[in-house]
């Protein structure tokens, strides 16, 4: 599985979305499921999936799928 597929699946798992839900354009609070609680679970899911420890600033900056891709890049995960 590619990094991109793994990140999409992490979003679907954490936000309780169907397995085929499009997630690439998701933004915080645009999707009703992505609130502060789901954000906690999203950060934990991404950390587990990619074996990284995300810094505080990156946790509170991760406000869209695109932003998550950028942030993971900082931790050496090339999402494409």
């Amino acid at each position: 599985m590619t990094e991109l597929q793994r990140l999409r699946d992490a979003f679907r798992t954490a936000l309780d979305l169907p397995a085929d839900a499009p997630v690439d354009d998701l933004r915080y609070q645009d999707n009703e499921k992505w609130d502060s609680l789901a954000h906690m679970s999203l950060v934990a899911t991404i950390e587990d999936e990619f074996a990284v420890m995300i810094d505080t600033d990156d946790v509170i900056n991760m406000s869209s799928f695109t932003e998550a891709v950028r942030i993971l890049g900082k931790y050496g995960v090339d999402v494409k």
Partner: protein
Amino acid sequence: MNLLHPDARVIDAGTGEELTAELIDAAAAALAGERLLFLPMSSTVGSVARYLAALRLDVPVVLLDPDADHTELIARYTTDEVHPDLALLLTTSGSTGNPKLVRLSRAAVLANAEQVAESLGVTGDDVAITTLPLFYSYGMSVLHSHLLRGATVVLERTGIMQRDFWAAVNEHRVTSMAFVPYQFEMLRRLRFDPATYPSLRTITQAGGRLRTDLVAEFAARMDAAGGRMFVMYGQTEAAPRMATLPPEQITAKLGSVGLPMPGATFTIEDDEVVYRGPNVMMGYAETAADLVKGDEQGGVLRTGDLGRLDDEGFLFLTGRLKRMGKVFGVRINLDDVEREFPVTAVAGDDKLHVFAEGIGADEARALRTKIAEWLGSHFTGIDVRVIEALPLLPNGKTDYRALEASL
């Protein structure tokens, strides 16, 4: 009733909009002739204006979650006849299938706003920020106690897991924040350091038991930054605050929820915590006809909590009489969950764990979504576990202790 001190301010952190007397007057004009207001209470200046207008006109308000469907509740409670003392109606023991309302009088709401402001030492210099929904009794109580003392309330909607929230804390020089237990887990994840927010003086905790190691940890963090942490205890039925643990006692009385509100008392009767004070509800309402009823409580609230008082009067909670759980600070009756769904329910730390026999993973996921919707709760607070067979006691009843031990 007027909760609004003339110096009080309400500001929207997202839009910069500020509450004005004109906005409240306009909302009041639009409410003329109403006997009861069903108010979806979002954290916006418009909602707060309608709320304060209704309170000023003595129109009772039913505070509702703006993101939920309340068709059934509104149909059930719509009436032209309400008791003259009635000010607020709040939902409780949250299931959307069986909405029961707590009836609060004007006197009780005002008394509790005053009690909270006094026990926390709220002044006109304070700036609170919304960390909780305003339709939830704890969020409502933060609003009331600050408006009453001429303080500022900043309305913020993104929440503590987003940059915008923390930017607003610094921009508006927030002095006070209120959190329920799961938010302390978030704060720990964010490595929250109060020293980063120089204006911050006070954090409060309520909405269920917070693990004592987290109480100690956050009290120490606040203390190191020259601030204070208050542990509090309440129920919607008490408008909602019943006890506060003063910051200087937090270490010596670790695990206690503190002393009763000013002018109130606790007694322990058959192990149950009984509260007497001016802020106790008039009673419950299960139908529209109940809204004309007067006071049925006489200032006495049997809390359903088990507890003990130490020799200095500090309250320690030890359990619940009924099988209740809390999910994200909202009370849930475990027996109700079991009546509605084919599951066995036990309470965890701020989580509902349900055990279902012999279902598949897809069914388990669907069940989680359904239970969350029915409770009006967040899906991450519900954990569905598939089990081959429930453990039983020798008498054939479910062995709940074994289930709890398996968590």
